[in-house]
């Protein structure tokens, strides 16, 4: 079974997780075997889908035949990755290393890279017609695409090579001679043999190089083939993040000529329709008029910045209307998708 992949990206709080779930429900209802993979906050998706808990392994969604859901468990993926790419004794040492834990928590590409490895596994399991991937919000979703390259660069990059020598050293290998004076100086400044300790760890890390760079290339290929859907709202922060996607990612992502604006107000609020209903009291009439004036101004602002954005990046715009409450059932998710029919056209036939 060849799997189509849709990657939903965008900044935090724009409704990526909900739209991912809605698309997945729509696909399942077209008889596609579908899996939606989410990152965070998984609880909302689990609630909406009526699933108790989500984990790395897909769970069947009870109320929707053909739909499975999974969550990215970063630390589990990270450990699996180490076991896959490292010799057993190196894996053990790495997983016990406090610096390695920090790397997993802090290196911005690490979590996104782990998410990418998991995506690749879902694709390669060949279980699905469609995989819907809800990306981590870091860097407006852009980190997810950049992560394989950054990870490869970090582990195989000039700095590590310079510290550890050109060939992959064995256990407790010594540093390249040219690096030694700098390390000595660094240790004087740091006040102890800190860099020496870290360097042992960096050597172990380097032994992952071949495995990771091979895998990273596979993930990059999957990402280029996937259909990206960029989601934003008409507020500055998420739009800045969406802009990064279109400006910084030309060759790493599949081509996208569409931007999805979520939580949009009706364009009809800009018209200055007369307020009918003669029996309405004057103060209430004034309040209603003033209220519409304010919201109409907001609709105009949002309209203008959306148009500007779409024009600058030559994008087609899909608008998903604002909904009073977050969907809490499979049917409500299907309803959300039905409110933006163009979005549904992004599903593979």
């Amino acid at each position, binding site marked *: 079974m060849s799997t189509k992949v849709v990657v939903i990206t965008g*900044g*935090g*709080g*724009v409704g990526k997780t909900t739209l991912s779930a809605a698309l997945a429900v729509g696909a399942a209802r077209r008889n596609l075997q579908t899996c939606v993979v989410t990152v965070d*906050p998984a609880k909302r998706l689990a609630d909406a889908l009526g699933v108790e808990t989500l984990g790395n392994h897909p769970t069947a969604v009870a109320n929707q035949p053909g739909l499975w859901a999974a969550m990215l468990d970063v630390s589990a993926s990270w450990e699996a990755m180490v076991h896959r790419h490292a010799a057993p004794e190196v894996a053990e040492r790495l997983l016990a290393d*406090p*610096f390695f834990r*920090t*790397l997993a928590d*802090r*290196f911005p590409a690490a979590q996104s890279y782990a998410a990418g490895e998991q995506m690749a596994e879902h694709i390669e399991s060949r279980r699905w017609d469609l995989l819907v991937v809800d990306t981590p*919000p870091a860097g407006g979703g852009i980190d997810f695409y950049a992560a394989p390259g950054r990870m490869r660069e*970090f582990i195989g990059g000039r*700095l*590590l090579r*310079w*510290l550890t020598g050109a060939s992959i050293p064995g256990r407790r290998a010594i540093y390249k001679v040219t*690096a030694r*004076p*700098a*390390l000595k*100086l*660094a240790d004087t*400044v*740091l*006040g*102890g043999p*800190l*860099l020496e300790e*870290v360097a042992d*760890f*960096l050597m172990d890390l380097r032994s992952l190089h071949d495995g990771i760079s091979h895998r990273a290339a596979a993930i990059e290929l999957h990402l280029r083939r996937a259909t990206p859907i960029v989601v934003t709202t008409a*507020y*500055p*922060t*998420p739009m*800045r993040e969406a802009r990064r996607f279109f400006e910084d990612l030309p060759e790493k992502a599949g081509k996208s000529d569409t931007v999805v604006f979520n939580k949009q*107000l*009706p364009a*009809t*609020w800009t018209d200055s*329709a007369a*307020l*009918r*209903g003669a029996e*309405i009291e004057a103060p*209430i009439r004034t*309040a*209603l*008029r003033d*209220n*519409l004036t*304010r*919201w*109409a*101004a*907001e609709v*105009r*602002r949002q309209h203008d910045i959306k148009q500007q954005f779409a024009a600058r990046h030559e994008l087609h715009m899909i608008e998903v209307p*604002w909904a009073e409450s977050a969907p809490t059932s499979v049917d409500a998710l299907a309803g959300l998708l039905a409110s933006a029919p163009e979005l549904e056209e992004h599903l593979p036939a």
Partner: protein
Amino acid sequence: MLERKLIFVSGKGGVGKSAVAASLAIVAARRGLRVLAIGMVDGLGLAEHFATEKLAYAPRGVRPGIDALAVYREEALDEYLRLQLHVPRAAPTKVLTRALNVLAETAPGIREIVTIGKPIYELWKGGYDLVLVDAPPLGQLFSYLRAPSAIADLVPAGPIQKQANHMRDSIADATTTSLVLVTTPEELPVLETMETLDRLDVEPVVGLETLVVNRLLEPLEVPKNVLATLPAGPHSAAAHHHLATHSQQQRWLDALPPSPQLPYLFGLHTAGEVAEQLGDVWDEII
């Protein structure tokens, strides 16, 4: 609030943290303070709200009374080595910087201490009445604020440890330094803000100045029974939208302690206008 020397402004991403930081800088400058605004992550938000181009590492005047800069890690690392750790100019700092760059990706707290070092360094230099920081969003805030103590625990006694302890004390000194937490009255930002408040109780790394509730809607004086009888159309739809959003907002507002409130600003086209208007609101609050 404007009596502090160093104020960190944080909040969940997208709640308007940069707008609030910029507006506080504006109101402080209107009262005659010399203000340095620092974008700790990339400075893009601050630049938009000051209606200026990309910020540099060196301070630049952006408005009367306000200089602004953005922290970039490589320059911050260089400054940290030279000025804070007094690495002699003759030392091969290029080589050292490269080694530390590797370390910064891996060792706990190095990147964070170098970044948070910049506002603290500016505080110590004392060239401004107020250093106002557009800080990282809540998810990363503690890893920055705690970096100095993390580093002090990690390294043996030496210049770095001494410096880190000094930084930790400056952040914790509530007479000079405080934190402003911005939220919008919505589910996820409020929940994350409440988690942060709990964490500050357990780990008082910095004094809390205040919470700020941003984008709050005013009540709409249209009774529900009247709304029900309105003919369908934009008036009724906009009123329904306002009332529904307002009542959701009130629910989340009730979960928070009483805090200064900033209004939802309708229809403002530029970030510069937003910061300016919020500055007017602060003028009345403070």
